[in-house]
């Protein structure tokens, strides 16, 4: 029961944030009045680079890119924190 109520809270918060985003984007796009996909002319357009044909195994470059972004941000943060961390004074033993 406790878990279900927590799940409901998470979903409610997610719905609230999603609703705010949706209304913000809808308001923004209606003011700029962009052309929707359904209104665009259809035809044979060349496939963008990276799209693959059926049965062809492609390299997961996007995954590698995501992993690289996460790794670089993580490494930079850890190094910055290490550099600016306040060192606690250590007590020297009295001889």
């Amino acid at each position: 029961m406790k878990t279900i109520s927590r799940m409901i809270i998470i979903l409610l918060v997610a719905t609230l944030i999603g609703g705010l985003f949706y209304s913000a984007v809808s308001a923004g796009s209606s003011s700029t009045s962009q052309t929707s996909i359904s209104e665009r002319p259809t035809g044979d357009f060349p496939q963008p680079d990276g799209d693959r044909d059926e049965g062809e195994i492609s390299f997961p470059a996007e995954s590698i890119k995501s992993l690289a972004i996460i790794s670089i941000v993580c490494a930079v943060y850890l190094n910055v924190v290490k550099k600016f961390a306040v060192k606690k004074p250590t007590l020297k033993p009295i001889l």
Partner: protein
Amino acid sequence: MSKQNLTKLFLDLGAFIALLIVSAPRFTGAAIHEWLAIALSGAIVVHLLLNWNWIVEISSRLFSKSAKNSRFGYFLNWGLFASGIMIMLSGLMISETVVPFFGLSLPQDMSWKSLHELSTNITMILMGLHVALHWNWITNMFKKLLAPRPQVVAPAFTIHRKDA
């Protein structure tokens, strides 16, 4: 290592791998991309439930001195949550598989596609910071998991009964 920590570690590891797979829709195809993203959002809900005590604790004493070190992580996690919702929402708006599967059709707008890409990039940066904040926990868990367990040695003495 406690059972809950082990569950957290494997759930987070699985979610991280799923995130990397989901971030390559050209490699997986639209169907796997969308359904795996739905599953990943379920895993994130479980992740939040497992860390519920921390969320409640920091929320209750957010502006006190004792929560000074956790404040950055707290707001970062809110940002990550919001950007994750933005990815899901924009992804559903441009869905090719999941939304039509339920017999629904949504008005298509090109702005959702650019928002989907933007929120993905923001999420990757925030995810890097999230991993960095928990780096010590992650490395400690792996050290404990991979460290050889001490063997229990049987006592090297025998008990002799006096009357034997």
